């Protein structure tokens, strides 16, 4: 979802017209958001009803007597016609009431506040690793195009997006945990620290640093480093590839030739001139890759028993816990929309051509 391109239209018009133009942008934007959300609600609702699982089963288990099953079915409104159920669901959702998760017995929003930081922490670290290594690798591959290094980067990238991540995850667990014991057992934190450490923000690395608990920090680090590196590797594969393309494009431009003629150092040309221009589309690439990690990398979270939002929604879906699925989907949808807007804004800041005068 990209904001409408309006700079040319707006330029050179009267103040009133410009204001009206802005209002139109905002209105269009709102319409997009509202329809996106409505679509999200409708899709999750109907998926929830189409799934051939009796939602009462998730609430009660298999052994509940028939009269209890009937009572709960009525309480959940499952005896109502489908359209009435949908309106009920819509009404609750509009009031910000996503109900209670039947799996955890907590309000869905409480659960999400707990699981989201776990995913944010993992995705942020993953993206950091991916871009801090991916961008230089991409630059290197572009600068030494056709060289052995370029081929190596290409192979690394190919493996990154063609090998299934759960397989890589299992193999790396076998190697780094079971054999070498460099990293800790799946999970976020060791049971030893479970009761001496009280997280504030839910981002354990920051929390433990903030509280000066170095042993906790090290333990958390030993837990997060492997899954974060794997996610980082996958985004690295994509980011380095894109960086290489963007850089190749920039390096063939005339201003590079001009800069060289001026006698600028190669480092300056590559890192300050070419990369500066390649950075504009690169921001969108990194933002999108970050957003996709935030969605919750279900497979990685499963293998590493990472209590994040991907695992939460998957568990809920398998148990027909539709309140939790809806809440989670809306939150992820919002994050996606927010990151898109953010990368649009960044894009405008970085590229003066897209800015309205």
């Amino acid at each position, binding site marked *: 979802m990209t904001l409408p391109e309006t700079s040319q239209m707006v330029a050179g018009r009267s103040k009133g017209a410009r204001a009206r133009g802005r209002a139109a942008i905002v209105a269009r934007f709102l319409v997009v958001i509202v329809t996106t959300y409505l679509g999200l609600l409708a899709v999750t609702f109907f998926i929830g009803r189409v799934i051939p699982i009796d939602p009462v089963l998730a609430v009660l288990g298999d052994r509940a007597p*028939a009269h209890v099953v009937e009572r709960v079915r009525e309480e959940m409104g499952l005896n109502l016609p489908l359209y009435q159920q949908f309106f009920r669901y819509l009404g609750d959702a509009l009031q910000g009431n996503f109900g209670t998760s039947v*799996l955890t*017995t907590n309000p869905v929003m409480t659960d999400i506040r707990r699981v989201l930081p776990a995913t944010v922490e993992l995705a942020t670290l993953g993206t950091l690793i991916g871009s801090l290594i991916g961008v230089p690798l991409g630059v290197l591959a572009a600068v030494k195009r056709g060289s052995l290094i370029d081929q190596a980067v290409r192979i690394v990238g190919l493996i990154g997006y063609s090998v299934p991540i759960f397989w890589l995850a299992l193999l790396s667990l076998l190697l780094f945990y*079971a054999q070498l014991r460099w990293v*800790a*057992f799946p999970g976020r934190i060791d049971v*030893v620290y479970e009761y001496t450490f009280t997280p504030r923000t839910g981002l354990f690395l920051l929390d433990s640093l903030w509280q000066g608990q170095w042993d906790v920090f090290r333990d958390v680090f030993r837990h997060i480093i492997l899954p974060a590196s794997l996610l980082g590797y996958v985004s690295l594969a994509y980011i380095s590839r894109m960086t290489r393309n963007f850089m190749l494009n920039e390096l063939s431009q005339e201003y590079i030739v001009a800069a060289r003629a001026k006698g600028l150092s190669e*480092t300056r040309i590559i890192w300050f001139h070419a990369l500066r221009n390649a950075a504009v589309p690169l921001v969108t690439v990194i933002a999108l890759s970050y957003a996709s990690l935030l969605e919750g990398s279900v497979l990685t979270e499963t293998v590493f028993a990472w209590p994040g939002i991907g*695992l939460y929604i998957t*568990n809920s879906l398998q148990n027909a816990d539709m309140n939790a699925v809806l809440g989670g989907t809306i939150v992820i949808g919002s994050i996606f929309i927010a990151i898109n807007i953010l990368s649009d804004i960044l894009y405008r800041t970085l590229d003066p051509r897209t800015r309205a005068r």
Partner: protein
Amino acid sequence: MHTFGTTMRRLTAGAAIALIMTAAAPAYAATPADTLVQAWAIDDIISMDPGEAFELSTAEITANTYSLLVRLDLADTSKVKGDLAESWTVSDDGLTYTFKLKPGMTFASGNPITAEDVAWSIERVIKMDKSPAFILTQFGLNGENVTEKAKAVDPTTFSFTVDKAYAPSFVLNCLTATVGSVVDKKLVLEHVAPVTVSAESKYDNDFGNAWLKTNFAGSGPFKLREWRANEVVVLERNDTYFGEKPKLARVIYRHLKESSGQRLALENGDVDIARNIEPNDLDAISGNADLKLDSAPKGTVYFISQNQKNPNLAKPEVIEAFKYLVDYDAIGSTLIKGVGEVHQTFLPKGVLGELDAKPYKLDVAKAKELLAKAGLPDGFTVTMDVRSIQPITGIAESFQQTAAQAGIKIDIIPGDGKQTLTKFRARTHDIYIGQWGQDYFDPNSNAETFTINYDNSDEGKNKTLAWRNAWDVPKALTEEAKAALTEKDSEKRAAMYRDIQQKFLETSPFTMIYQQTEVAGVRKDVQNFKLGPSFDTTFLGGVTKE
């Protein structure tokens, strides 16, 4: 180009240092000596309220955190022994049970345990009417009469009145179920939530159900410190426990679903006990000098269930033929090796009245003969709903092959557990491989679900397994199962159940396959860990680590 290379070298060096830092961190892989860490798939938990909890993992957790009037006697599981109760008597008419409580006991909160707490615990179960409430309502208790039927005579005397002169073993066995747990009345009353009285809810409060779902009000050897769904359950020693105090300070259940992951954690010493070990990981554990295995037969039986709505499956000869088409030997020696034992009757081993009969074995010729008699010499085609989980899929494939030899073509419809179960419960399956765990440790639990079906219409109120299979159970069999309930002589009662199972074996559209064996991988330093015959009899109070 030169300077660019320098930058890259610096970057690589930085990355290398980061890697070395990770590697240099010391390998920590032993759980604390006073803490027992178990890996277990605990995603079945939906509530920690003993008046509502009805799952396998909660059975074990509440057994270690709550006290009951009486408990199963592990030395002889056809008997019970006192827990809170010091002694009990049954009135001559067989209707009133009077329990005398042990003196001077307190809850973890410090409140004294009185007969008043026992009475209120039962009252709230009946009035809340959650899934397991039927275990107590079957004695004629309801919202109106419960305060009269279950009452405190004095602070240490509790009386319980039933509506018929049942076999005392039946009544006492039911009281050993989780639903009979005694909760701290004073503490729970501080946390009740108001409810608007309406057609659906007759009472003005929730009896503390919302609070107790995630909190604790018991008096067992351990207290529940925390439950985080799909993550962890933490128990701590209850220092006010009236019995022998546990040696461990803490028990942690970590949610881990996969057998392979559990095995890895066990081998590396990150967990002390792994509870969901599958056959292919068993050999590795038994071959490891640091590990040992513990196993116990459990009250869960597995069966092939033939829906009687399907006219072919309803033919008596076809019902019988199915029992000859299962390759019991192959299944027993490979697919369920270590996790189950071939079992052809509906009462699991260890329960009063068990019948150790295995009259059937794979006999395709015999099955063909029976099919021919049924007018189906060329067999027929039929579907089978199969959960995508081992050993169920393996058994399904084995049965598919052997049935094909007799001309029965089975189309397997794979599905998720809840999905296939939804079909079975709606009676829209043809064949389903099901499992059933006892609701409480008494023969009536399985006898009722397998042999009672009063109304075989789709609207039937008692949705027992017999109903789900649309099996119109012969009257005589149902009558006998009912009669066994009021047989006071335990020996005679056991004989009746053996007779019922013999008849069931021959005529029922259930082909019983095996009884589950629970198996756990245990680290060598863990002592006195013993899986119980049921999930609510795996006690952790005596466990130590050295």
